[in-house]
């Protein structure tokens, strides 16, 4: 056991770091940045950084050279991400496009389309979003109802998508819709990519409980998509969507925000009935448990990396990451706010307090996005532990005959 890079890894890490040191500055603290891309300057800065990376070959380093990558290994990707995370650079805006839309385009788009769309995606010139969830299709995303009707060499789309991150500033989106409700649920879907500036697309931001708006409702009214923008065969929509969802589960990692270090630092100085909060037994026990969760996730990641470094396929252990970190985030938010007693209600300028309040307000979203706690437990139970699926009421019948309640 050791934590050392192999010779090649060390060489690659140095290369990453040398470039980053020349082109960016180290982060001063671990406070997560505010990624409010409605702010034009932030968007500009994010695009400029992505372009800089692209020009130097760092933007999508695992992609083949012809689309702007350098054909890097998984391990090299991780090393780059580790190093980049130490620097004060914009992030968050291109993740959906590069993490989810990119892989689908890579697998299903024509050669011509790949050459047209992948490089600007990597460069940050064009932003992509993912149009899957619908008002009545969340965890059960295959229950989607937006309609596609074929008309000559075009498709006419009608319906509504929801929870679409970044739709308000995206240029393109990947879209899965129902082309035939008479077929079985998973057989009647088809997959496209769509120009978000197409006539008939209307984007309405959703105001979240945090007060911010990173998600949208997207309405489709007689939107035309050329058949050439179909990804996969007619009826293969679910198969293509699964590729994306698998990538989403890899992309949605740790729930960022206030963590055990923040709770610990806060507890050292925060007064609790005349003593530092850290003298309180309940506070100490909570901090111990969060520390165990945090280091358990960190060491799990190191095990995964060890497998990649050896060239092996990692085990399923990384499947616990989001469920553990999102729950921890919510608990730490509660802990920090409660420590202020009656004053915990107040919005203040104190950065620690803001961090706890943001954690508390944001954590419910983290426990839902990219697979709810419940869906993730099902996935662990069925795919890792091999337990049987629930009997289902939506198999072997036409989609239109599946019970759907009042929604």
């Amino acid at each position, binding site marked *: *056991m*050791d*934590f*050392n*890079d192999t010779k090649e*890894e060390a060489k690659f890490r140095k290369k990453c770091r040398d470039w980053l040191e020349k082109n960016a500055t180290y982060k001063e603290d671990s406070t997560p940045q505010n990624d409010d891309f409605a702010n034009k300057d932030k968007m500009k800065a994010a695009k400029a950084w992505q372009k800089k990376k692209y020009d130097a070959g760092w933007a999508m380093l695992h992609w083949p050279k012809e689309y702007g990558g350098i054909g890097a290994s998984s391990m090299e990707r991780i090393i780059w991400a580790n190093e980049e995370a130490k620097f004060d650079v914009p992030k968050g805006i291109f993740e959906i496009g590069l993490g989810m839309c990119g892989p689908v385009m890579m697998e299903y788009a024509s050669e011509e389309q790949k050459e047209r769309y992948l490089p600007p995606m990597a460069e940050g010139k064009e932003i992509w979003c993912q149009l899957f969830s619908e008002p009545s299709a969340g965890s059960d995303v295959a229950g989607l109802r937006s309609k596609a009707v074929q008309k000559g060499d075009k498709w006419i789309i009608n319906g509504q998508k929801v929870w679409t991150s970044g739709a308000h500033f995206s240029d393109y989106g990947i879209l899965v819709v129902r082309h035939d409700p008479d077929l079985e649920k998973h057989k009647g879907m088809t997959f496209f990519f769509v120009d978000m500036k197409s006539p008939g697309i209307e984007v309405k931001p959703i105001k979240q409980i945090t007060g911010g708006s990173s998600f949208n409702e997207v309405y489709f009214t007689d939107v035309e998509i050329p058949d050439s923008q179909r990804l996969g065969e007619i009826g293969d929509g679910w198969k293509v969507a699964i590729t994306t969802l698998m990538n989403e589960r890899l992309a949605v990692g740790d729930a960022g925000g206030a963590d*055990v*270090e923040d709770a*610990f*630092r806060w507890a050292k100085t925060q007064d609790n009935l005349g003593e530092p909060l*850290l003298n309180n*037994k309940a506070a*100490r*026990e909570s*901090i*111990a*448990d969060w*520390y*165990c*969760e945090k*280091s*358990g*996730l*960190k*060491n*799990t990641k*190191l*095990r995964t*990396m*060890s*497998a990649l*470094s*050896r060239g092996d396929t990692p085990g399923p*252990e990384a499947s*616990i990451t989001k*469920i*553990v970190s999102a729950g921890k985030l919510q608990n730490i938010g509660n802990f920090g706010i409660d420590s202020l007693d009656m004053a915990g209600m107040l919005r203040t300028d104190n950065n620690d307090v803001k961090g706890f309040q943001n954690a508390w307000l944001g954590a419910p979203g983290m426990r839902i996005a990219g697979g709810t706690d*419940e869906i*993730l*437990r*099902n996935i*662990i*139970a*069925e795919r*890792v*532990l*091999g*337990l*049987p*699926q*629930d*009997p289902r009421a939506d198999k072997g019948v036409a989609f239109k005959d599946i019970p759907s309640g009042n929604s």
Partner: protein
Amino acid sequence: MNLDFSDDQKFLQEEARKFLEKENSLLRNRKVLENQSHFDQELWTKIVMLGWTGIRIPEEYDGLGLGHLELCVIAEELGRFLAPVPFSSSVYLFTEAIIKYGSEEMKKDLLPRLVSGDVIGTLAVTEDLFAPSKDNIKLSCESGKINGKKIAVPDASIATHALVVAKSEKGICLQVADLSHEGVSIEHQENIDESRGHFSITFDGVDTQAIGDEISGWDIYESIINQAAVLFSYEQIGGSQASLDMAVNYAKERYAFGRPIGSYQAIKHKLADMYIALTLAKSNCYYAAWALSTDSADLPSASATARVSAIKAYQLCSQENIQTHGGNGFTWEYDCHMFYRRSKLLSLNLGSLSNWREKLVTSLEQSNIN
């Protein structure tokens, strides 16, 4: 980056697993529990013959001269199969203490006999129905002679020697006592996991040898405990994995309302939570194993982290394994209770969950995690 065991270590683990399976360790555990025989002599003899008692003992003292990582993989298997032997007392605690803190004379005397199984050690620290601390140890030590009583000492009926925490005029000292001394009397104490006997030991003017000096006994004791916590944690994740496997298998086979109970989300989510707790504990154990094998400055926090998560994982996995088995899980006949008992024994033997959480936060204060 290589947070994993080597191929040789994995091979050793595989061999250990095959051996304990073939030896029917679980059935042996049940027999010891039912007969209150405290340990399985035959299994212990075979373990000694395999050389496991000498894994960490240097070759010059007849041992195998291997590292802590080899001991970790063995510990995981002993935990998985609930081996009813004094391995944790004699190897993780007593032998490790002699290797690290014993005088040369002591090593020459004891280590070869620990390898051969002629010497079996244990640790005697608790005196009353609360946690021992350097302020409440009463058993006295004057010029190496000890007087007083220890309770809840595991494996004392098979042990030949004990490491005894005692109070001298100057402070806390750590003494090695030969249990064949005429001033020693050992009495069985009923306990909640009789597959591993627990005893009181009364020392009446027993001559002992000191490990370390007269004042650093508590620090040495803490250091031994911090090391042993990693090895105990490996037994705990072995037991957790066995409990989870049992629950998963049962959930696939048992039908209710016309389908396997494992197809109900109430059961799936319970089992997923067990997997999550076990994965966190296991990953923390890997890091602690590294810290132990390299004698890292991180060892106190790394071992406490492994220990807290391993206690929690085994507690959850063993109790929810019973729950998944329903009424069957509550019977003596099913093995579920043996894991439930062992999870409690292993969690208490080195001090409780609550006190390990406290140790963890104390170590964070000392190392200043931010």
